[in-house]
């Protein structure tokens, strides 16, 4: 790969990671003032803020690599649906609290393995972001696990809802482990090898589900396409809410 082609490939990869964090943050923000307790409200917003911080670093870097002059705000607020590279898992509707926790469990556990691997990326900027973020997502993972175990191993009602929630989000986890970067980037030590993250991910998730008395759902379909700009019906509404202010008042500041 030539220098420019390499930059462009890294930009695409970093953009996907940034979009994952951005969209997950936006979804979690919908819980503000609606969480089951005020303590949980603050916890969810802290997690959302961590993710937003990761998104900012990653999108800013993607913009620099692109060389087109787009900054983090342009990337977050002025792209349309088909230009977003996030996995579909993070854009799924929040559903009930169990669904949000199931989604967070799978996603944070994935981010934990991903950032762990990227901490030793040969791209120093990426390894710096990952080394900081891996501590954040370690907490997100524990937070989600705490609720999945309590709800799964709770009352008959909470168990049924947690099991249903897991069934809803589980098929979307497959996309996380599809190659998200060209083989050259993996070979150069820049990008993580996504399929290799699945083993440790599954092993940890299984241990949590076992403590939660939940079974791994039977997968009947394998949704995919987020990395290529194909998104679910829910995503357009999320973007409309996230982007309307910036689009209505370009350059608006506090």
């Amino acid at each position: 790969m030539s220098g420019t082609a390499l930059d462009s490939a890294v930009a695409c990869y970093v953009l996907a990671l940034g979009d994952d964090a951005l969209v997950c943050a936006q979804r979690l923000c919908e819980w503000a003032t609606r969480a089951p307790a005020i303590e949980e409200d603050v916890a969810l917003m802290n997690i959302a803020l961590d993710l937003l911080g990761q998104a900012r670093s990653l999108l800013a870097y993607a913009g620099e690599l692109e060389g087109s002059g787009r900054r983090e705000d342009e990337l977050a607020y002025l792209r349309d649906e088909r230009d977003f590279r996030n996995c579909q898992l993070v854009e799924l509707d929040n559903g009930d609290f169990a669904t949000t926790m199931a989604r967070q469990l799978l996603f944070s556990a994935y981010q934990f393995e991903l950032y762990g691997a990227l901490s030793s990326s040969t791209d120093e900027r990426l390894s710096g972001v990952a080394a900081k973020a891996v501590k954040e997502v370690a907490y997100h993972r524990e937070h989600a696990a705490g609720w999945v175990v309590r709800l799964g191993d709770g009352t008959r009602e909470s168990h049924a809802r947690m099991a249903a929630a897991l069934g809803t989000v589980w098929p979307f986890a497959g996309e996380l482990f599809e190659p998200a970067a060209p083989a050259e980037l993996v070979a150069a030590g820049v990008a993580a090898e996504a399929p290799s993250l699945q083993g440790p991910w599954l092993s940890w998730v299984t241990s949590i589900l076992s403590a939660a008395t939940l079974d791994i759902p039977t997968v009947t379909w394998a949704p995919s396409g987020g990395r290529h700009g194909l998104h679910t019906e829910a995503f357009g509404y999320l973007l409309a809410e996230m982007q309307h202010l910036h689009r209505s008042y370009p350059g608006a500041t506090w």
Partner: protein
Amino acid sequence: MPLSPDGSAAAPWPLWEVFVRPKRGLSHTHAGSLHAPDATIALQNARDLFTRRQEGVSIWVVPSAQITASSPDEKDAFFDPAGDKVYRHPTFYEIPDEAEHL
């Protein structure tokens, strides 16, 4: 108050007192209180509510019901007798010049 799925009021989460140690060498200090269903979640909530701005390196949570507190009504009997006993303060000693860091 949290509501259970059928809309009735669920039992509220118990209250916990939170103690935060600002840094090594200092004592844990009472930071506030919060609600949580159990000790582990109480610790997580405490981390999110009281150490978001690097206020601490260690947290204790204690069920509020486990704390026995002195009563405001007994304040006089408890604390006033110490008021006129200035000799309990170590202020009546000559400090030798050689003793540093006192």
